[in-house]
């Protein structure tokens, strides 16, 4: 359950990869029930980013954590005669962190799926979720089948995602809970399929949206444990049964307005596998190459925008009138002073009520506008590094200010700036992975998807790295050569 997939996946991929590597290196350290009892604490792993109602900071007292999973953890610990202790982890790294021994149990909206059962031990379920379709009021779709050929939004690495993948429709993948519904309102998608907890909090109440009453599918949240910790698993299952028997679980869920007819239903079989048990094969590789193609096209287009815009901004900042100087300066400081991630969000989601940019177009614009600010500073530095004698010689020959800039200063600045500009292009190539937050599936995103499908970060991670490297290395080598040539060129002395 991936409402926890809030952060940009791009940034999560590396820790997960490292965690996977560590797991390979160190065998999982087991912790028996006796050890938990003697330590006096049951440590449970979760992700605060999942937010309400799972686990989140009390808005009245930020030191205190609240949420229905907090209460479940406390109740379970009490029955074991210990206290519960929370351990914060990015949602995507919970399983590797469990295996490494960072905590005793995952309690974080973990869906029961066959592939999770293959890797870790799972407890009895403590919650039943239903996959809910949300549509715009005026649209006529009444079932998942009716959405054939349409674009449907969901979160990455969810059961909803694996369900949609099997259907003849187009999937738009998001990183946070709110964005799929924002895009549905904006008309970029025709429906959203997600757990009812998310749908009720972020979709059904939104003006113009409706949730269909019937669940497409149901599944359960379970606790995750190391396979070796059998005694602890038995103890936790007993405690859970106890909580179900005496109404503790029901009262917790009722307090959080989560109790509904779903919870009374009989036990469910594990839901759809998140991952089909696939190898990293030729089909995956083709998708990777496609992802690399998108990364490259995106970077080239964004830089084609950033470069001339940066030059124009540099010229404005140095040589235009007061207002021009101010505007260029303001642009540069604004775009350098705020995260590109935020700029992408504003362009894609923030502007949606005014202009509905296509995701790829928004990505090109966002990266291009952002990098223009950096290019402007590179070009400004290059212009300032030209000796004053050059403009004086031009002035003495009768060239006007603008002719001096155009024929004397600018061509020289361009040469000076070229190595730095090439380096910036390489940086852009890698930064382009950020655009996955606005549903563009480029190389890094493709890697994280494949990592789930083949249940390993290692091979997809290495393939992804190799592809980035094969694009950036030739450019970096080119930049180095340019730099060397300019260094050896005494013409740079300007005399």
């Amino acid at each position, binding site marked *: 359950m991936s409402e926890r997939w809030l952060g940009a996946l791009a940034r999560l991929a590396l820790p997960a990869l490292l965690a996977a590597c560590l797991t390979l290196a160190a065998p999982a350290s087991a912790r028996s029930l006796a050890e938990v009892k003697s330590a006096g604490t049951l440590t449970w792993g979760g992700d605060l980013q999942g937010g309400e109602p799972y686990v989140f900071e009390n808005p009245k007292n930020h030191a205190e954590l609240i949420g229905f999973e907090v209460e479940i953890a406390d109740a379970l610990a009490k029955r074991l005669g210990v206290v519960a202790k929370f351990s914060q982890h990015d949602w995507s790294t919970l399983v590797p962190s469990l295996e490494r021994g960072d905590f005793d149990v995952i309690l974080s909206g973990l869906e029961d799926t066959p592939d999770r059962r293959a890797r870790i031990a799972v407890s009895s379920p403590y919650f039943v979720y239903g996959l809910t379709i949300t549509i715009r009021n005026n649209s006529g779709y009444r079932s998942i089948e009716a959405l054939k050929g349409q674009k449907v939004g969901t979160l990455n690495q969810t059961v909803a995602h694996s369900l949609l993948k099997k259907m003849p429709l187009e999937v738009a993948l998001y990183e946070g809970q709110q964005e799929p519904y924002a895009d549905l309102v904006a008309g970029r998608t025709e429906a959203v399929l997600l757990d009812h907890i998310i749908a009720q909090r972020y979709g059904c109440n939104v003006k113009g949206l409706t949730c269909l009453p019937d669940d497409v599918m149901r599944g359960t949240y379970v606790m995750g444990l190391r396979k070796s910790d059998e005694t602890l698993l038995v103890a936790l299952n007993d405690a859970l049964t106890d909580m179900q028997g005496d109404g503790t679980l029901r009262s917790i869920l009722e307090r959080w307005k989560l109790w509904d007819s779903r919870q009374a239903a009989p036990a469910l079989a594990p839901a759809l596998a998140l991952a089909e048990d696939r190898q990293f094969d030729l089909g995956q590789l083709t998708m990777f190459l496609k992802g690399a193609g998108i990364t490259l096209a995106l970077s080239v287009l964004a830089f084609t925008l950033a470069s001339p815009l940066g030059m124009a901004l540099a010229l404005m900042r140095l040589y235009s009138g007061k207002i021009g100087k101010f505007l260029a300066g303001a642009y540069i400081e604004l775009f350098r002073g705020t995260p590109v991630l935020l700029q992408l969000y504003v362009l894609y989601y923030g502007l949606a009520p005014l202009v509905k940019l296509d995701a790829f177009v928004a990505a090109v614009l966002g990266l291009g506008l952002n990098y223009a600010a950096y290019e402007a500073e590179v070009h400004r530095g290059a212009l300032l590094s030209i000796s004053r*004698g050059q403009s004086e*010689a031009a*002035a*003495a*020959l009768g*060239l006007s200010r603008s002719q001096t800039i155009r024929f004397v200063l600018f061509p020289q600045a361009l040469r000076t700036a070229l190595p730095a500009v090439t380096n910036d292009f390489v940086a852009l190539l890698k930064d382009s992975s950020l655009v996955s937050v606005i549903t563009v599936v480029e190389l890094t995103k493709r890697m994280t998807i494949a990592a789930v499908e083949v249940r390993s970060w290692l091979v997809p991670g290495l393939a992804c790295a190799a592809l980035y490297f094969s694009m950036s290395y030739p450019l970096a080598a080119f930049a180095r050569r340019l730099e060397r040539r300019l260094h050896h060129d005494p*013409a740079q002395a300007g*005399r």
Partner: protein
Amino acid sequence: MIQLRQVVKAFDGANVLAGVSATLDRGKIACLIGPSGCGKTTLLRCINGLEQIDSGAIHVAGCDISAKEDRPTLRRVRQEVGFVFQEFHLFPHLTVLENITLAPVRVRLLPQAAADKRGRELLDLVGLGGREGARPAQLSGGQKQRVAIARALAIDVKVLLLDEPTSALDPEMREEVREVLRDVARQGLTMLCVTHDMPLVTSLADEIWVFDAGNIVERRLAKAVP
């Protein structure tokens, strides 16, 4: 051709030019000598408007430069007055010929072909015929200064200002530049040349202006050179 009347120029409140007055007739060549830091370069820069004067007046090649900022006049002055810098200041990204033709094409609006033709003639004049495709970085100091002279002449100036044209050069390269300047002098240009290069003074100067502490302290006629 050059008339200076009570020219004053101060930097940071200190007078670098303290009311300079002098006249140089059409076709005459004056060499300006004097100790370092006394304001010689500043005077040259004022004459073609690279520095703005604080008071007084400069009359050069039919244009009047005063303390007021006046862009159209400045533009005219620069089309009539050439400037050769001590440090050459060639444009490194352009070839030798492009250095010379840039101003004729962009300022005088000469067709490129005509500018190229004139440029080659000037390169012949400064003894660099055949080097038009070279980049400044491939030239020696003496060659660079000769290109700079050709570049200054290319817009058909009436007055040429030179700021120590040989002093950034190794001694063995000075003679080639002196040679070129003597050839240029024979074309009848009015020239004002700051220099400490005595062989240049003796072979070039009609007049010698001795400068000290922001003013001309002595003007004397040079003895005629055979």
